[in-house]
């Protein structure tokens, strides 16, 4: 059901309500699991806690299974192959940063979120999180200006360099800063390969096929295939900063429509999220 979600993507449509509901659920899960993390817990255990929490609340399918990264793995230090993204037996220690990343599908709506935190105080990660605000603003502004995605990617990169950080979303498959998400048909059982739900992969593949014919791509990357204006739809945006063994990211859905009004042409699905609240509190 790769919908041509253009006209119905108004802020109050039922479609978006569904996406908003699952995104909130995912962030609730992240906060609940983060509150339970304690010294000695492993990444695998943290990933399982997310999975179980969401399963209990009716999640049956995934865009991808939950990830958890602790310590310098939050900055993907020495990541060479994608298998290294999967949770390991690394144990959490006081002061360590962590990132929880999950993409549940609920009622056919997909969310993909990233939640950064630390066990106790970690001033470096606090700073990284505070500096992510500028990226959230920059991305929205330039998407509204309908700049090519590749150019926006480069501008995000430039801001990171100016802030003195390393671009860590480059470590993701295809170096993506964002990817499209969509509705997924509910099946009785849902298979996944390498942690990614087959239904969602199917959606992504069919988007890729369409996009290839029409000159756009569901993956927002630094490469030539992203050299096109923002394609209407839902984009899970995940800028990821790294600084000397500490990483921080947020991930949330950016809605892009074909509206001529800049305000309505792109907006964040939900502004009531932990990191956004945090920035508001700091002001």
């Amino acid at each position, binding site marked *: 059901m790769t919908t041509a979600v253009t006209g119905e993507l108004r802020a109050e449509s039922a479609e978006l309500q569904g996406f908003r509901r699952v995104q909130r659920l995912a962030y609730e899960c992240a906060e609940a699991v983060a509150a339970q993390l304690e010294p000695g817990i492993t990444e695998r255990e943290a990933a399982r806690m997310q999975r179980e929490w969401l399963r209990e609340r009716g999640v049956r399918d995934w865009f991808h299974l939950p990830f958890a990264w602790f310590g310098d793995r939050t900055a993907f230090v020495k990541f060479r192959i994608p298998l290294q993204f999967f949770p390991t037996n690394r144990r959490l220690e006081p002061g360590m940063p962590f990132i929880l990343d999950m993409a549940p599908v609920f009622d056919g709506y997909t969310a993909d979120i990233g939640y950064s935190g630390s066990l106790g105080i970690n001033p470096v990660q606090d700073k990284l999180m505070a500096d992510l605000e500028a990226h959230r603003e920059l991305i929205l502004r330039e998407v509204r200006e309908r700049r090519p995605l590749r150019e926006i990617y480069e501008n995000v990169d430039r801001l990171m360099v100016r802030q003195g950080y390393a671009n860590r979303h480059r470590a993701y498959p295809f170096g993506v800063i964002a990817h499209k998400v969509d509705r997924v048909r509910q099946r009785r059982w849902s298979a996944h390969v390498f942690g990614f739900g087959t239904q969602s992969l199917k959606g992504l593949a069919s988007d890729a096929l369409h996009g290839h014919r029409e000159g756009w791509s569901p993956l927002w990357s630094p490469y030539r295939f992203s050299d096109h204006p923002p394609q209407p739809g839902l984009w899970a945006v995940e800028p990821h900063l790294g600084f*000397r063994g500490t990483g921080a990211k947020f991930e949330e859905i950016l809605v892009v429509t074909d509206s001529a009004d800049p305000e309505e042409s792109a907006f964040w699905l939900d502004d009531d999220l932990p990191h956004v609240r945090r920035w508001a509190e700091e002001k």
Partner: protein
Amino acid sequence: MTVPVTLQDARERRVRTGGVELCVAELGDAGQPTVILVHGYPDSKEVWSEIAPRLADRFHVVLYDVRGHGRSTAPRPLRGGFTLEKLTDDFLAVADAVSPDRPVHLVGHDWGSVQAWEFTTVERTEGRIASFTSMSGPSLDHFGHWINTRLKRPTPRRVGELLGQGAKSWYVYALHTPVLPELAWRGPLGKRWPRLLERFEKVPGDGYPTSSLPTDAAHGSWLYRDNVRSRLRRPRPDAYAHAPVQLITPLQDAFLSEKLYDELELWVPQLTRRTLAAKHWIPRSRPDQLAAWITEFVTSVEGGRPDGVTATGKYADRFGGQLVLVTGAGSGIGRATAYAFAEAGARVVAVDRDAEAAARTAEMSRLIGAPEAWAETVDVSDEQAMEKLAEKVARDYGVVDVLVNNAGIGLSGSFFDTTPEDWKKVLDVNLWGVIHGCRLFGRQMAERGQGGHIVNTASAAAYQPSKALPAYSTSKAAVLMLSECLRAELAGQGIGVTAICPGFVNTNITSTAHFAGVDAEEEKRRQKKSARLYGLRNYPPEKVADAILRAVVRGEAVVPVTPEARGAYLMSRFTPKALRRIARLEPPL
């Protein structure tokens, strides 16, 4: 730094204990935490004359002449009068006299440290010692165990360590011969000692040692004869420290190997390590650094943080609390270097012509471990601005311990396309910037006379000719040679100079480089292309920063960093013709 007090202002008193009378001097407010300084052999309490005044404004500083030294009386008979048990009695008597209610902070150098290890590890002093700073003097018990473990399982490395220390201990054997040492000290050796210290130990000739030296040294030989053999043969099995210890190890010590302290964590639960590029007599040659470390350690123990250092970097023992100035610290290698020093606990001055970028570097440095960090906006090619900076740094932050002249710009294009203005610009920043830095900050280092290190960022282009980079390579070759000459000049003053030759490193030098002889659009294109190529090469500036810290620790002269830089360096020495061939190639831009 002005030192208002000297040992002459000290309040003196005599403390009677075990048949001798000790001469005790006190400085500073008796209400402050008490720091007791114990001197070594052949010294008297005046060995602390540089350090004690530096500590006196924060602490109650107490020094005493060990029995038989300086103005303390000697036991009769001498044989058997210098055992560690009796020295412990002396210490307790002094501590009870100067600080009856509060535990004291101990600082020992050489034999003072050997004694203080005994004080810190025996039961009867428990609760009287708050902390101990040890320099150049191991515990004889730990030393005995160190020898035993090496004898029991003599791997090649352990045998090497044993032989190394065995050779360094030649004077200990000499001191065990009867009468001869006394004769030598009272005769020619005593007379020549001050000059020997100056010449071989780089101790500044400023009126130390005192006239009591021949007697001190003659009496002090009994320290060795009464303790060394018996303790090394039967080291105590329970010599665990009951107070936090800060170990300061001079790396160029002619008498003690730093390997002696390898297993110290077994004996000391709360150990803070510091290292220093200096010879044995650090209380004379490095008073500023020692006073800073003692102050920091004592303050942290008083404040309830017995582990002292919080920096996590690899070289925290070496750079903790040192003042490091990095030019071009707003991006690339300079920024990564500032961060690496910050992680090692250094105080960082980040200099860049981009104020915002420098401020950013300083801010992040504070977050990752620098106790203090400042940003300064200066163009290194501006002589007057650099002079002002040097004045300001010396006045507000102190004398720079490590200077990194890193700021540089790129310039590419054929020789005939390079205009005189282009030449001037690139030489102004790349060469004159380094000259100003070395001239101003190097002079401060030399005048302070307590060592330091200068790192100049040259380039692989300094020895790899290229038809595309005539001006840039020339400027960098000059930096390389300047570094080598300066290294020779400053070697006698304990100041090291290193030239770093990075090679292709992924920084923004490519996107700011000027391409001579092409229009703006073509320049933009080439900048982009070269940035892309450097990005594909993707050698991170953090690795260059690591190489810089390592080079400072090891005192290396020329350090090519990337594999291609190392390869070219080898070729420049062994196959220069091949290198000249490469120089003719057109860069793929």
